[in-house]
């Protein structure tokens, strides 16, 4: 690789530099306390997945290009150029990381390895080595908003189909899925799939909420890809909609990373304070149940149920209790996993990994610990909000024959609600 190009790549690190990153790169003691925090390292014992090692690759560039000692005595730090070899290693370490930040939880200095790896991805993208699939998915999402007129009718048609099911379920012929409704209280941002729209629509209807559905999905492959600009643009699609409609709050569907992007990242990225609140749908549902705006049958589920905290919802999003409240309100035998909440093991499905087929085998292997945890509870149903987590756990269910049912929390709520309409169980996926 040309020296010129390597300097350019190192320049990406400089552009992304900030105080936290600099400290992380300066202070890591290479004590490897983080090694047993990472499900991928624990399951594979493969050095390239050791959290500090992943970050070390960036540190090698940093030492070489941005510290005098590393420039003059590179051997002392194993400082390196961002050449092909390093980039290949970086690719494997960075795109495998699910961003669960369990390593950060245990590190004595709270070093955010996932954050360092977001810079790694920026360098890879600059080198033309970003993950192709994640990049395509990000581009497709942006294409949809850039050429919105082309897709609007198809999108609305899809909503109409779901609306029919809402009418049927609620027994209310006037029930609707409002779209583009000026002055609604809530802008609900779902995923492209019906499964995240239908139960929410029924719940909003029953709670008599003033809401409207976003044209765009909350999922953000720009974030997984590691392109902060695209990630922001993808989130802008519904944030701009929220501004335009003048809503009081944006409610994000169960999906974990989408919530974190909306609640934690977006304001910082856009440099603008939101004029509305951002909440997670489960916060809203928990409130509806507590306030009696919707009711659920307390014994709707008698089989043992457990709950998986998605990393981006729990440790990184701060929502621990609401989903448990909801599950406990409708299930008689709730069993938490050990460990749970902020210490929860990552299931292995985050970081966009479920979309990368080359990683399928590795991904399922990295879920071994999660599978053992689930087994230990003896639960028959595992409830979890995040789409990626559920896909992963379904994979684990098949590959490790766990004999469990993987459920979204909203689906459980829907099943537990006494509805006036057809009592036939409707699962949008059938």
């Amino acid at each position, binding site marked *: 690789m040309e020296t010129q190009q390597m300097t350019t790549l190192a320049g990406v690190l400089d552009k992304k530099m900030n105080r936290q990153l600099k400290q992380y790169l300066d202070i890591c003691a290479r004590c490897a306390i983080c090694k047993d925090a990472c499900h991928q390292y624990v399951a594979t014992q493969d050095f390239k997945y050791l959290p500090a090692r992943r970050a070390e690759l960036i540190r090698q560039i940093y030492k070489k290009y941005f510290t005098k000692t590393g420039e003059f005595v590179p051997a002392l730090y194993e400082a390196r150029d961002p050449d092909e070899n390093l980039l290949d290693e970086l690719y494997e370490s960075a795109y495998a990381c699910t961003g669960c930040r369990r390593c950060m939880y245990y590190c004595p200095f709270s070093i955010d390895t996932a954050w360092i790896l977001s810079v790694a991805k920026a360098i890879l993208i600059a080198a033309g080595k970003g993950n192709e*699939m994640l990049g*395509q*998915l990000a*581009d*497709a*999402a*942006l*294409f*949809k908003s850039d*050429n919105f007129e*082309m*897709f609007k009718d*198809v*999108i609305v*048609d*899809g909503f109409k*189909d*779901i609306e029919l099911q809402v009418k049927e379920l609620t027994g209310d012929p006037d029930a609707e899925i409002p779209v583009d409704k000026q002055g609604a209280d809530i802008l609900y941002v779902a*995923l*492209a*799939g*019906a*499964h995240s729209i239908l139960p929410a629509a029924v719940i909003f209807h029953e709670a008599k909420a003033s809401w409207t559905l976003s044209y765009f*999905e909350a*999922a953000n*492959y720009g974030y997984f890809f590691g392109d902060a600009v695209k990630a922001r643009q993808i989130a802008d699609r519904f944030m701009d909609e929220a501004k335009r409609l003048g809503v009081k709050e944006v409610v994000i569907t169960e999906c974990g990373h989408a919530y974190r992007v909306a609640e934690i990242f977006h304001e910082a990225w856009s440099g603008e304070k939101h004029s509305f609140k951002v909440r997670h749908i489960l916060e809203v549902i928990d409130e509806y149940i507590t306030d009696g705006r919707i009711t659920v049958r307390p014994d709707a589920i008698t089989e043992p149920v457990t709950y998986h905290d998605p990393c981006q919802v729990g440790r990184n999003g701060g929502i621990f209790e609401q989903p448990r409240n909801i599950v406990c309100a409708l299930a008689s035998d709730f069993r938490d996993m050990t460990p749970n909440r902020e210490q929860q093991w990552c299931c292995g499905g985050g970081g966009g990994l*479920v*979309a990368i*087929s080359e990683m399928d085998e590795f991904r399922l292997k990295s879920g071994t610990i999660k599978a053992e945890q689930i087994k230990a509870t003896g639960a028959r149903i595992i409830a979890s909000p995040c*789409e990626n987590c559920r*896909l992963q756990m379904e994979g684990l269910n098949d590959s490790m024959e766990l004999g469990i049912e993987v459920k979204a929390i909203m689906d459980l709520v829907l099943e537990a609600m006494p509805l006036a309409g057809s009592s036939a169980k409707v699962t949008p*996926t*059938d």
Partner: protein
Amino acid sequence: MSEEMKADLDLDLKGLLCPMPMVKVSQNIASVPVGGTIRAVATDPGSMADIPAWAKSTGNEVISAEKVDGEFVFMVKRLK
């Protein structure tokens, strides 16, 4: 029309939730030759926007996208 055309690859994407149908099409596009086609059947209505958007942004072509008995049938042609 999609019924008559013989695709190089048939993908059953029924039951998959968005964006997985789009992901699967994208993952499989390399396995048909340039100019070849994939016939994909999905059940998630979101795929009606997702798959065409993916095709446009990656420079491929959706020859047809139809709703047949509650299923969504796509003919996707690999252009490059």
